[in-house]
């Protein structure tokens, strides 16, 4: 083994040996998802930084913001997921209504420690006075529930757009955990709802903070209803 210098923080394994025993093809599954768009808005500036890649889950009417990014998609049984060998599988969640999709940045050790988030749990750039700060974006609150097993009071949420106007179904909630302070953004799934794109359906739409300099990673979970 050759070692050229001392290791630091981040470790990457670039490659793994192809094993000498027979193995299945590595597989990857891609969920169906929408194309993120950058609108032109009423202002003259198109934001070219990472945070500018925001879906049209508009925060304010026709305003492009550099502080938020979005995810949207479907998780219904009707969606076929491809694996690495081009075989289609049907997601077995037969009824998604009541399910929740979570985008998590950080570590969740105990899901029962989820609690509502406020602006102090957000990145610094969302705590200021900008019109698209956290409080102005997640400007409503209600009890966040998942089936009968989860209920968190006064959770701030942002109402995302559907068919080009502010909708009434697809909400994005802001949560965190009391032990690890992970950023958790949740969406309660609604089967085949109108998405922000006219004529296209989605089960969830999420808004998440976007750091302007670098991409912020998220892991996605589905809580079964």
């Amino acid at each position, binding site marked *: *083994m050759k*070692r*050229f*210098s001392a*290791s630091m*923080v*981040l*470790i*990457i*394994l*670039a*490659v*793994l*040996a*192809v*094993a000498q025993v*027979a*193995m*299945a093809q590595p*597989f*990857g599954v*891609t*969920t169906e*998802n929408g*194309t*993120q768009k950058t609108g032109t808005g009423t202002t003259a500036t198109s934001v070219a930084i990472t*945070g500018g*890649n925001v*879906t049209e889950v508009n925060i304010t009417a026709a305003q492009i913001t550099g502080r938020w*990014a979005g*995810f949207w*998609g479907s998780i219904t049984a009707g969606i*076929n*997921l491809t694996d690495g060998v081009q075989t*289609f*599988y049907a*997601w*077995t969640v037969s009824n998604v209504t009541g399910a929740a999709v*979570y985008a998590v940045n950080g570590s969740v*050790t*105990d*899901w*029962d420690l989820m609690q509502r988030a406020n602006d102090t749990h957000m990145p610094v750039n969302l705590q200021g006075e900008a019109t698209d700060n956290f409080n102005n974006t997640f400007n409503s609150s209600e009890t966040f529930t998942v*089936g*009968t*097993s989860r209920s968190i009071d006064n959770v701030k949420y942002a109402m995302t757009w559907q068919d080009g106007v502010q909708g009434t179904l697809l909400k994005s909630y802001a949560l965190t955990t009391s032990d690890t302070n992970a950023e958790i953004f949740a969406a309660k799934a609604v089967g085949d709802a109108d998405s922000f794109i006219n004529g296209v359906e989605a089960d969830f739409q999420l808004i*998440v903070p*976007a*750091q302007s300099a*670098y*991409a*912020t*990673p*998220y*892991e*996605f*979970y*589905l*809580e*079964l209803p």
Partner: protein
Amino acid sequence: MMLYSGLNDQRGIFLNSESIIGITSRITPADSITMFESTDTPLIRRAFGQLASAGFEVNEEVRSSNFNLDLDPENGRYLLVSTSNYRLALPIAAYAVKTNSWVLLVDQDNLDEVANRIEDASQVIAVGNFPRDVLEAIEPSFTEWINNNNIYTDSEEIASRFGEIPSVVITDGSTLEAEFFTTPNPVILSGYNRIIDDTITFLQENNIKNVVIVGNKLSVVGEQIRASSNKEISVFIKFGQSSTQKLGRVYALTMYPMPMPTLKITVNRVIYNPIKKELIAYYNNLGNVGTYTLTTMTVKVDGDEIGSASDEDVIFLGAGEVLPVAYDLDIPIDDIDENTIVEFYTSFGIQPTELDAFLTMTNKFGPPFSLTLELEEIEEDPAVITLDDVAYYLRYKRIGMDLTNNVTTPVYFNAKIRNLIVNGLKKDLYTEGELIGGEGATVYIPIELDDIDLEENRNFDITIAYGSDSSFLFNSIEKKLPFRTEGSAGIVGFVTSIVGEGSIPALIGLIVVVLIIVTIVVVKRRKR
């Protein structure tokens, strides 16, 4: 490498394809990067060059042909698992991170190295079964051995060592994902598309409130947990990853398949024989390892059940075997048409106590597996064969079964030997073939038994299915014969295999005479 990252509280990323984007999409130029590359057959050679081209600086490059040994921190704390038990490696990995231990994957190739490393270690916890020849070398160093002869129970016992736990991670053990090395919670095993009853019991008895399932392929397991627990256990399926650079796209998790045998069965056809009032299902093992199955089935016409049948005991299918199994069932012939289907609820696995997968239709995750019932009259088969003798041949390391075909036409057969102790572990053997009409033959199954196996094996437990048609092996022989050996191993065995075992005393005498003659000749020549 992933364990190394977990022990050092660092983020590990691995490739599962030849695209460097699998890495670059998840790091930033501000990250400090150490690259580990296999010297054998990496997916991408000299990947650091590609990273550099993409604007990333690699601080350190580490190459090895055996990271499992080379990254060992050698702190005297080890967890051992056999390479034949890869599925256990993931529950063990989570425990290793918790206890700051290193996991060593043990097999014949690295046995000496592993035995040396653990000899003076302060903690050596072995998990699961090991072949005898491996066990003999490492067992003296064990400080503890977790072995319930059941990988699910083993994983649950490891989980119990985490203390009071609000949450567990569930995997079927077939793929590696970063969650297993970063979670502070225990990892337990489930079936591929079936949760074992004992696992549900474990979750309930330990008051587990939340379960994280890694990979959407196991979502059916999640739904089973929800149903079995009356929705008292919350289930989170980790299904995707992305970043704010990804333009809204959610991508699959980065997962890597563990080296495992291929388990796959199907039912080729199902027919009803009105002559014998039997339903016959043709099970086919499409995998590369012997598999056990257990089936319950129902016969339906337009959704209404008209009959049912089930196995009384698990059935063993050798790799590649097609086995017709007959079930007594009285169905009116008039009820059988193109709308008559048979729904199979078939569970299967590599151990009779680990039937951890359901047979499903293509693109479905749960049972039943359905086939149209065919109607076919099958007369009594006149084929008759006898099993005359069976023995283990020491010299040739194989089992030989003497079979005789008592009819004048060819007879097809498959033969199984159940629960033979091989290298300390029970194993089922399988072979198939054809017997020429009116003749006998010795059918061989190669297998190597060590000295202790020869002492521990008491019987040959043999089942032979046979018939005049290779598609209809409905006649059978079931016999338990005393275990015995033939011949000797080594040079004596070699010679006696030529001249016959009964000639040993005469042969020895001949050898002695020859040696005496040679000695005399040599002495006389020296004197001259």
